[in-house]
């Protein structure tokens, strides 16, 4: 169920565009933020809000990497694997996370705390290696900083 508060935010979104369908991505990001992921039920609801058949929602949800059609851990660790980060220690960062958490790309720890994902360039190449944790960038990482970061996430 979409709450009244969320409805109000959706209506604000609608005012920005001459065509409701343009609110697609902002709406899906909003729902995902609230619910953690886009379940078939959530996509159906989004379709009702936008007055579109569910397939229109599904095709968008499966196109964009930030939209998740599967549940994910409390903390999503997105490790940049593109060139600039790899040149300054990105591979070591990835290996350390894999070893410490015992998971690989796309996997979630059994307690549901962490999901690990490798991602492409995050637009932060001058301060690599970079890991994005949920919305926040963590830059210039090394093993010591990474341990401190992971210790702080529970």
């Amino acid at each position, binding site marked *: 169920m979409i709450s009244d508060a969320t409805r109000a935010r959706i209506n604000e979104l609608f005012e*920005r565009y*001459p*065509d409701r*369908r*343009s*609110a*697609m*991505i*902002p709406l*899906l*990001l909003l729902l995902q933020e609230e619910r953690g992921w886009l379940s078939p039920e959530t996509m159906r609801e989004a379709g009702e809000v*936008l007055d579109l058949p569910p397939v229109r929602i599904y*095709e*968008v949800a499966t*196109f*964009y*990497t*930030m*939209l998740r059609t599967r549940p994910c851990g409390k903390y999503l660790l997105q490790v940049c*694997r*593109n*060139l*600039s980060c*790899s*040149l*300054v*220690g990105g*591979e*070591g960062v990835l290996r350390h996370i894999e070893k410490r958490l015992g998971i690989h790309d796309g996997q979630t720890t059994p307690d549901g705390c962490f999901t690990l994902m490798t*991602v*492409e*360039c*995050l*637009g*932060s*190449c*001058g*301060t*690599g290696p970079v890991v*994005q944790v949920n*919305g*926040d*960038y963590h830059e210039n990482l090394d093993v010591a900083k990474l341990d401190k970061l992971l210790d702080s996430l529970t």
Partner: protein
Amino acid sequence: MEERVLTRNIGRPGSETLKAYRDSGGYTALSRALKEMSPEDVAERVTRSGLRGRGGAGFPTGKKWSFIPKGTGKQIYLCVNADESEPGTFKDRLLIEKDPHMVVEGTALAAYAIGCRRAYIYIRGEFVHGARVLEGALREARAAGFLGRDVLGSGVDIEIHVHRGAGAYICGEETALIESLEGKRGHPRLKPPFPAVVGLYGCPTVVNNVETLACVPHIIERGPEWFASLGPPNNGGTKLFSVSGHVSRPGVYEVRMGTPLRALLDEQCGGVAGGRRLKAVIPGGSSVPVLTADDIDVALDFESVAAKGSMLGSGGVIVMDERTCMVKAGAVVARFYAHESCGQCTPCREGTPWMERVLWRIERGEGQSGDLELLLSMCVNIFGRCLCPLGDAAAMPVRSYIQRFRDEFEYHIRERRCLAAGGFS
């Protein structure tokens, strides 16, 4: 060489606030333009300034604006391209987070010049913080009367909205951006028709990069002649370079157009990290051909870099030292384009992952004789055969890595191991 125009406020505390922006003369260009200049005057000044698009293609900005047809009775739209997803590029993020009002003022001026009442800033979804900063700046600008209905009593309405993307490199391509803004998959459209004629919601639309628009207030304030004089002919202004990789001081540098690449690297960035020797430099984001260490005596303007067989692109400079395996660098770059292909065109959809597989095979020491010819033939069969330039963006670098570092590729195939070690860590 260094010339701080776009970055003049960066580093000052509170640089993202309206107050700081106004203290440095911000919004005077917009006020002046609305009072003293017609939309055509603004566009004409931008044309004379020699400003060329900073999103990658270097298309003259004033000329792009002039393609908007007059008197169609349709809405006119402006989309600000803040997708910043070309690997190695992180300059727009700096402007957005540290001087968002410059972006807002430039957007408002461009909107005025083309007769647009509603502009959208399409920002990549990962820039959560940047989107928040921009929203804040828009609220401040609206409250101060620089946006909204009847801006500064001029009778002109200008509204700007932030629109977040959700992770797709292809949405930086202008027609994919438009599709995405319409709530669809980011599939590029066939051109023509160009967005200037049929763009957002079927209406005339201009798409400009963040840095391009950030130049506009300065052109209006200080004059097109001053802007043009900062660089070589037809390359007006300064340019932001995002420098990363094996370099002592990575970061965003603002220099005059035409500054030699060697000076940027040695004098501004402190040279190669650890005093190592340079092997290769990508001058304009990962989609442009790589340069060797012998090529860096090149002026950083559109024509000079093209004369060296590469492109100025987005100004994303990636530095690789002597330890870097060029086969691996090529494979990492190819992986990106394979991952980001939207899947519409067969040569790109099938070709980019195939190139990636062959490159990793060579990298692992499992290459076969004939693999280099195979890769080069794939480049030929992708290049120029797709709806949008994403396929080219994969083929150009791969071909250049093989052509310029062929001995390394042959060594990998023959000896089944690498000549270089330690570049990746």
